[in-house]
């Protein structure tokens, strides 16, 4: 055969040898997702088969040649009920099953390791808490839940790892989260699946799943020398945040120690739980997120800090479990090269 059409032959051989209908299963949720996909495919094939059998059987039994005169039939309430209730029941099973998977994928466990991901035209930047930066790549260990906190710096992007069966949009202005627990070491596709402009189809790379030991090695090799929180501390200092956010009795801003995770009474009468989203909004749009008892004097930092900068700040504030670090920053400004000439505009060196 191969001499007849070598091209087609090669294609067929290649297809048969590489044939797959699902991507590799490389996360805990993948096998659960595939079980539901398998169930739904079976039900769909069954439904399609029923329809085809009905069409083919009736077409041959009641063709004009075999059945020259049609018998008029009004309908049948029993049959209508049958094909309303059975599909509805099956759809509802799929709905419940699917919803349990959906809730799992978008509800990270509390012990998850957090990695921040910023999407921008046209690259993914991953920020590990230890200060490791990656572009168009993500290293994660097996056996450890990993929570991604996604945000976009410009347009909508979507972080898709088919081998994990996980996908989440990175959109501007808010954090989205998703989590997974990788199970099989290897290198898998990372795609941007939300159309984002010119180079959409090349905005992606590899997700590298490693054993915990290899991952530790990678972390050590890839360190940038400053953790996210330390970087945040630097920004905190260079923006002179501690001028107001300190523990003095006459402080003009609330003390930020232990604020992360707390319930904060706001000036507008509401109560907010301080999380990443709240802190981001409070930095960029402070007048709408004013803590009760303080004057609205904080300027907006919109356009002055990059998304990575905000992430560093949040990571810093998260780690403030006493006011000690703020004191440190205030009293030892000379340790930080950026804070020479403190009177300079706040945005200096941060963007």
């Amino acid at each position, binding site marked *: 055969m191969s001499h007849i059409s070598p091209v087609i032959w090669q294609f067929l051989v290649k297809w048969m040898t590489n044939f797959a209908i*699902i991507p590799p299963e490389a996360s805990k949720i993948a096998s659960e997702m595939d079980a539901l996909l398998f169930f739904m495919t079976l039900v769909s094939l069954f439904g399609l088969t029923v329809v085809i059998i009905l069409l083919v059987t009736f077409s041959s039994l009641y063709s004009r*040649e075999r059945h020259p005169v049609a018998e008029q039939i009004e*309908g049948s309430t029993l049959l209508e009920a049958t*094909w309303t209730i059975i599909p509805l029941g099956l*759809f509802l099973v799929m709905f419940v*099953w699917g919803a349990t998977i959906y809730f799992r994928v978008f509800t990270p466990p509390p012990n998850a390791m957090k990695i921040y991901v910023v999407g921008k035209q046209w690259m993914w930047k991953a920020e590990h808490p230890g200060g490791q930066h990656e572009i168009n790549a993500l290293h994660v260990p097996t056996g450890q839940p990993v929570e991604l906190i996604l945000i976009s710096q410009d347009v909508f992007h979507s972080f898709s790892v088919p081998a994990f069966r996980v996908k989440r949009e990175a959109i501007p202005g808010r954090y989205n989260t998703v989590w997974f627990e990788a199970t099989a070491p290897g290198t898998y596709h990372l795609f941007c699946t939300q159309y984002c402009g010119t180079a959409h189809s090349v905005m992606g790379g590899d997700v590298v799943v490693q054993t915990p030991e290899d991952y530790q090695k990678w972390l050590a090799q890839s360190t940038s020398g400053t953790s996210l929180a330390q970087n945040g501390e630097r920004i905190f200092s260079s923006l002179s945040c501690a001028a107001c956010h300190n523990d003095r009795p006459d402080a003009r801003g609330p003390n930020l120690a232990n604020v992360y995770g707390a319930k904060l009474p706001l000036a507008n009468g509401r109560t907010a739980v301080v999380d990443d989203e709240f802190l981001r909004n409070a930095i960029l749009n402070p007048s709408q997120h004013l803590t009760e008892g303080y004057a609205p004097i904080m300027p907006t930092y919109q356009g002055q800090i990059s998304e990575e900068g905000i992430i560093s700040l949040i990571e810093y504030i998260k780690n403030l479990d006493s006011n000690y670090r703020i004191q440190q920053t205030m009293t030892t400004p000379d340790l930080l090269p950026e804070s020479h000439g403190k009177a300079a505009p706040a945005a200096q060196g941060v963007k």
Partner: protein
Amino acid sequence: MSTDTIVKLPDQATARMPKVSYLNKEHGILSWLLTGDHKRIAMLYLISLTFFFFIGGAMAGLIRLELLTPQSDLMAMDTYNKVFTMHGVIMIFFFLVPSVPATLGNFLIPMMIGAKDLALPKINLLSWYLYMAGGALALYAMITGGVDTGWTFTTPLSTHYVNTNVITTGLAAFIAGFSSIFTGLNFIVTIHRMRAPGMTWFRLPLYVWSHYAASVLMVLGTPVVAIAIVLVALERTIGIGVFDPTKGGDPLLFQHLFWFYSHPAVYIMILPGMGVVSEVVSTFSRKRVFGYTAVAFSSVAIAIFGFFVWAHHMYIMGLSNYSALLFSLLTMLVAVPSAIKIFNWAFTLYKGSITFETPMLYAFGFMGLFTIGGLTGVFLGVSGTDIHLTETYFIVAHFHFVMVGGMLMAFLAGIHFWWPKMTGRMYPEKISQLAAVTTFIGFNFTFFPQFMLGMLGMPRRYASYPAEFQILNVFSTAGASVLGVGYLLPVLYLVWSLKYGAIAGNNPWQATGLEWQTQSPPLTENFEKLPIVDHDAYDYEWLERQNQIQASEVSSVR
């Protein structure tokens, strides 16, 4: 396959085309461009729609050629982005949305309910001009540089990050939207006010029911997308910031507004096609549609539920888990009426007397492909599985099964079915059966591999892709070339038939609709005298009695 046929043509040796019909009552180009006749407007739409279909089809051809190889080598990535954007814009706003309603709906709704015209003939003509203005603007935008936002105009990409013809294209869709609103409005008023004496709601052909449901969606949904487009234009020009988070806006708001129309829009596209299938399946099995009221109310149910499922396009965008839960549940409910329709059509065949002319072949194609399209829609409506499948080729395959496998099949079924009524001549049967089968095979070869690509995770709107996906893409491109042949054939033989087709006579299919009880092509006033309706839709016994009465009249005259 049975070669038996129900076609009953007049004796070709003596038959003549009617002396006067809507086609030759008036002459000259102005008599067409200024006409108020719903049938002439339908023909204007048919010609312009076909033109836009082939422009959109050429774009599809370019897309498939680019995807033949993993690299982005046929065209630059920007060009590819423009090509798929224009393919979507033209196919959706200038072909699928108006396709069945503006051509077959315009032509047939007044005739089916026994009226002389639509209630608002001038508005009807205006809606064609708006359609043409929108279409011309879209072509202008395309020629002067195109647009690369995707047909979904996603913000903030469309508002801040591209400098192509976004506003021009948006305006084109905006204007075409008004065309669609006017058409819907016209149908609603006509169906309410202009039914012939005796034509009660439950004597209406199911075709009219489905158009009524689609019209309600057009009138209620289209203004919302018009608002969304205006907001995008204002954001681009003066930066009002409604969708801009840095100004306190919310980019997700655009998604809500856009899909609030664009999800019902898929029902605007598919419901009229379902109406065609009801007529065709009944006629070619010589049987009343099984469960008439169930089919009629399922159209209404789709129209109602269709408005409350839009956020299933946004499961992974950052909805709260609980709203995803609610929208997923509502999506399961909207899937049921479609299942009801499929089973009722299948049971219409039961104990019928079935023949397999071209319209019936297309209707079979519709039932098979729409079933696959509908069932794969459930995969995307279930919140959990949507995470893996959304934004991949699975979704591309799904909506092409519904829109092309469903709607286009129905459109072609309808064009063949009513061609003798519209033109007075039959299309050639053998070659058109061949075209129907070619389309079906080509379609499956094109789009079935895309389900597998999506399962494997290949994202949509990619100019280049990992090499492992190439083989399935080659299958898909090969299928598309077969599909292209399937679509070109009807153009050729239908044009041929205008001159050489057999003279059809009033009722070649022996169908029961009022449109078949008058001459082909019809008079400008549709009927010599307004019909009085004393029977249900699809009453084949009534038709037989009519035929007997006519036969006895003829013999008594002799």
